[in-house]
């Protein structure tokens, strides 16, 4: 019974075929889809891209089947029992639902479906190529679309979005200080540059970290500017960066007992992912397959590898109502600041003094 309960623990990321980072991304995405109401609002087939989806079975029956596949799949993925089958069922349901109902076409639903479907098709030894390709394809498509759209270059798009649709007072005030459409043009160019850089930078090891940082800043900036998370899209895309994490079996940790945050991360580690070396010195150190880190970099590696911060942050952002939307971007900015080098370095400094030596007493 205890074993079964431990298996159902969503914070436990070992014991399945899926790599740790993949399972974590999948579970969080499953949670996001439920919180954001994608299960309740699955569309019924109508004027489908594939007419057979409306004629094979009555549309309400097709919808019921898709709903069962989505809900059942998300549950399996979340509790870690047959997670790949769960991801496949949920992903297929989301992709088919998108194909079945063009009027309610949503990139957030389609992208989540694609990621889950590929997670379901993942197999040991296949590496991360396919999931990484999915993320790169998203950014490449987005860049290409904007590159060929003059409205993104001349400021017309951002002006229509910010001043027409959102009536953003912040954007309006900032734009008034500059020549007409200058800010809208800058935002358009910055978007093309950011998405293009992420598409080109993610595949290569040398530029990967910079691409992830650029991507996070871009999405958090869009979240702050627009005040909306575009359904589950913001979470699905940012979680996708986990597919670019280098696989680690375990991290050896030294000096964690001196750093409160590191001590806490070790305490909530369900999988014994952190192997604590009691012979730690004065500085926090971690080492694993990808190398050796000390101080703030070591603490950041621990924080990013632990599932609990993600499970605390993302649901907290998702459940916020529209009226508290600014708080959502504040949380995202705060999270980025926490993992920034100055804050990590400060937090990693030993705060618990070693006992004084007998000579000094």
């Amino acid at each position, binding site marked *: 019974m205890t074993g079964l309960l431990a298996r159902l623990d969503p914070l436990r990321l070992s014991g399945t075929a899926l790599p740790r980072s993949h399972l974590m991304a999948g579970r969080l995405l499953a949670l996001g889809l439920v919180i954001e109401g994608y299960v309740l609002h699955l569309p019924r087939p109508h004027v489908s891209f594939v007419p057979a989806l409306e004629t094979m079975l009555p549309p309400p029956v097709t919808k019921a089947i898709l709903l069962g596949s989505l809900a059942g799949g998300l549950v399996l993925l979340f509790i870690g029992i047959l997670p790949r089958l769960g991801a496949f069922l949920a992903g297929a349901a989301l992709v088919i639902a998108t194909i079945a109902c*063009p009027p309610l076409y949503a990139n957030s639903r389609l992208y989540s479906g694609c990621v889950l479907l590929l997670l379901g098709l993942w197999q040991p030894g296949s590496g991360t190529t396919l999931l990484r390709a999915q993320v790169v394809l998203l950014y*490449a498509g*987005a860049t290409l679309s904007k590159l060929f759209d003059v409205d993104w270059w001349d400021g017309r798009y951002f002006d229509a979005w910010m001043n027409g649709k959102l009536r953003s007072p912040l954007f309006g005030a900032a734009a008034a200080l500059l020549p007409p459409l200058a800010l809208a043009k800058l935002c358009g160019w910055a978007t093309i540059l950011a998405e293009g850089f992420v598409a080109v930078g993610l595949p290569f090891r040398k530029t990967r970290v910079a691409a992830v940082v650029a991507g996070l800043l871009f999405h958090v900036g869009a979240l702050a500017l627009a005040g909306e998370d575009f359904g589950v899209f913001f979470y699905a895309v940012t979680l996708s960066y986990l597919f670019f994490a280098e696989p680690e079996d375990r991290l050896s940790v030294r000096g964690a007992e001196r750093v409160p945050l590191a001590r806490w991360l070790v305490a909530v580690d369900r999988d014994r992912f952190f192997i604590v070396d009691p012979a730690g010195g004065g500085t926090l150190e971690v080492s694993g397959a990808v190398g050796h880190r000390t101080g703030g970099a070591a603490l950041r590696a621990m924080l990013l590898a632990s599932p609990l911060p993600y499970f605390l942050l993302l649901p907290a952002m998702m459940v916020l109502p529209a009226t508290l939307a600014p708080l959502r971007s504040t949380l995202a900015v705060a999270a980025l600041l926490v993992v920034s080098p100055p804050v990590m370095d400060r937090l990693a400094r030993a705060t618990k003094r070693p006992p004084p030596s007998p000579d000094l007493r």
Partner: protein
Amino acid sequence: MTADRLRAAAAALFLLAQVAGVVRARFVPESWFSWAPHDRQVEYRLEVTVGGRALSTGEIAERYRMPPSGWNSHGVADLKDVVRRAESRGGDEAVRVVLFYRDNGRPEATWRWPEEPRR
């Protein structure tokens, strides 16, 4: 081994289909499956008459499964495509659709169904 290969082939085909969607979007007005999220801002309003009777907003929403007015972030070509798909399936009634739209803040334009034959 065969199952593993099948899975890998299915995943690769799935990605290739998406690449085809991105490439296709360069040659057609619609943006479906092109990974162009939120790339346009279209303010629109639909007016529909069937057999000479104007449909209510609720009836329009039910007919097309989308709001009869509001903002669309995919593009006006996608809106037209939905109407075209719904209306080209036949039916005896004389249907007239007028789509009023402002594409990325441009002056209002209209599109009508049935479409006039191209000259």
